[in-house]
């Protein structure tokens, strides 16, 4: 074979130049071509189904479009700031944005705290550890529709066991409609969020905990540090970069969430987050322009949050 010695690159290639008569391509260029060829299908799908729609949403946000008038509007119809203006000045929008922030922050903090406790308790081997660990991951992998439905029934004032037990054992006077009264709905949704997504934090934190060298803790123990002191001064500093990373990931994901809130409350009782509002505009009001404008606001707010976050925490992580 004519294959060159593979020390030229990380990658071996067996392809021979296809066009005799021309100067053969260098190994490097052939590699580059093969790379582009192999990655093209992936890129095509992502650009077609995600890239173009994102750009289009931005365009739609500046157009006057309703589902009924859709056929008459081209991609580059006249542009207007109407939607953005209308959206920013609609009474409910500021509330929705605030609800989204509270919901995201609450869900993020809750899931990380619960996940941290979970990671700490299953850190050391014990009998049945594998099965305990697997069970703890279940809320995260199970279908969201089934989980929200079970929570709804569980908390239901008539059918649910929570209210039955609350009245029998805790002396509640009346059943609590957790998901339909303003004072509890948002907190219930946040609790659901913490319950469903703590496994995400748990997995990352457990992996990091297991990588903490045993000598560190051993040394601290010899120096007389108690278990809580060892956690505070040895483990926690080791975990901080991971916690920061999970924090930003979870915040972004919760900020974008539609399913959980929509399925639990439908956005009623003060739980309307931006995604749910966009959906309502899109389907109930068929006001595509306004829906797109709100989606763009959602994305922009998200990007701003992440930028601020990276500004304050990104540098520190690189130093660590």
């Amino acid at each position: 074979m004519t294959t060159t010695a593979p020390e030229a690159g990380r990658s071996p290639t067996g392809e021979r130049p296809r066009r005799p008569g021309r100067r053969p391509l260098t190994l490097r260029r052939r590699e580059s071509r093969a790379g582009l060829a192999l990655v093209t299908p992936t890129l095509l799908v992502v650009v077609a189904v995600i890239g173009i729609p994102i750009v289009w949403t931005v365009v739609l946000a500046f157009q006057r479009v309703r589902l009924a008038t859709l056929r008459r509007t081209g991609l580059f119809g006249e542009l207007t700031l109407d939607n953005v203006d209308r959206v920013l000045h609609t009474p409910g929008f500021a509330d929705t944005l605030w609800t989204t922030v509270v919901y995201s922050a609450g869900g993020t903090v809750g899931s990380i705290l619960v996940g941290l406790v979970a990671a700490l308790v299953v850190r050391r081997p014990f009998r049945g550890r594998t099965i305990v660990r697997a069970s703890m991951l279940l809320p995260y992998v199970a279908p969201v529709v089934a989980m929200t439905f079970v929570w709804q029934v569980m908390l239901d004032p008539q059918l649910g066991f929570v209210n039955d037990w609350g009245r029998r054992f805790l002396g509640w006077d009346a059943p609590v409609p957790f998901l339909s009264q303003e004072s509890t709905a948002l907190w219930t949704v946040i609790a659901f969020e913490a319950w469903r997504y703590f496994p995400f934090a748990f997995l990352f934190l457990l992996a990091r905990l297991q990588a903490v060298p045993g000598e560190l803790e051993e040394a601290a123990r010899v120096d007389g540090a108690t278990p809580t002191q060892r956690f505070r001064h040895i483990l926690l500093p080791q975990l901080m970069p991971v916690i920061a990373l999970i924090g930003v990931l979870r915040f972004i994901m919760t900020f974008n969430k539609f399913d959980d809130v929509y399925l639990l409350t439908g956005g009623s009782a003060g739980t309307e987050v931006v995604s749910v509002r966009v959906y309502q505009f899109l389907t109930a009001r068929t006001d595509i322009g306004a829906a797109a404008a709100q989606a763009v606001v959602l994305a922009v707010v998200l990007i701003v949050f992440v930028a601020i976050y990276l500004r304050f925490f990104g540098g520190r992580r690189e130093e660590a």
Partner: protein
Amino acid sequence: MDRDRIETVSLRWLRRLVIAAFLVVTLLPFWYMLVLSVRPIERLLLDPGSLLVPFGELTVATYAEVLKSVEDGGQGFLTFIRNSGVVALAATALTLVIAIPGAYAVSRLRFFGRRQVSALFLAVYLFPSIVIAIPLFVVFTRAGLRGSLVGLVLVYISQTLPVSVYMLKNYFDTIPVSLEESAAIDGAGRLGIIRRVSLPLAAPSVMAVALYDFMIAWNEFLFALLFLVDRPNRWTVSLGLSLLSDGVEVPKTVLMAGSVILTLPIVILFFASERLLTEGLTSGAEKG
């Protein structure tokens, strides 16, 4: 006793207590779902606090009702299962066909824009799906693709692709290049190397990614809701369950049977893939 001793002993007990509490909190909703799915609705209304199936109440009529087709007086979940299965399997297969070469390229080959590709995938993964949903809703409405499972498969591929490429890339990274180099010296071409060397080595990981993709597609809700809502015979299990539970006509116990049907495949696949995932990780370690 000094502080260290007190803390050690109390934390040991606290730890057991917390583990037990975690087990209860994570598993209780699943248990509750199972219990309710085999109780008749009249009994549930009389005694909502019971977490066990009282003797003599056990019934599987709920499952019969939820599975039977609408014409036979059921809820038609068999059709939903078929729809979900077809969509999830098609999305998984197509995702793998596209993602394997892509991930290989990102892992092994130096080409123009390689780094940007990885960053792009992360950005796509974290982007709000509701933003993507609006134009897709518009396009699908216009093209008459709303209500078509093909359109849904296409969207699901785009949802699973970034994660799959990312996971597969990590697995390919763990395969020693030297193995591929020896294949190259033996005269294998690029595609031959992927098919005969890299892919068999990554097989457990590919399987794990496939299961993961299947779970994402099976669980998905938003796009199914946007595209299929007016076509009851095309509903997926997730969509069917959520739409039926909005109304009051269908008893909750019957819907609980529906949610057991929705959850069970995922739980089974999860326990299967958990083992696969750990195996995939260990077999990916260098073997010389």
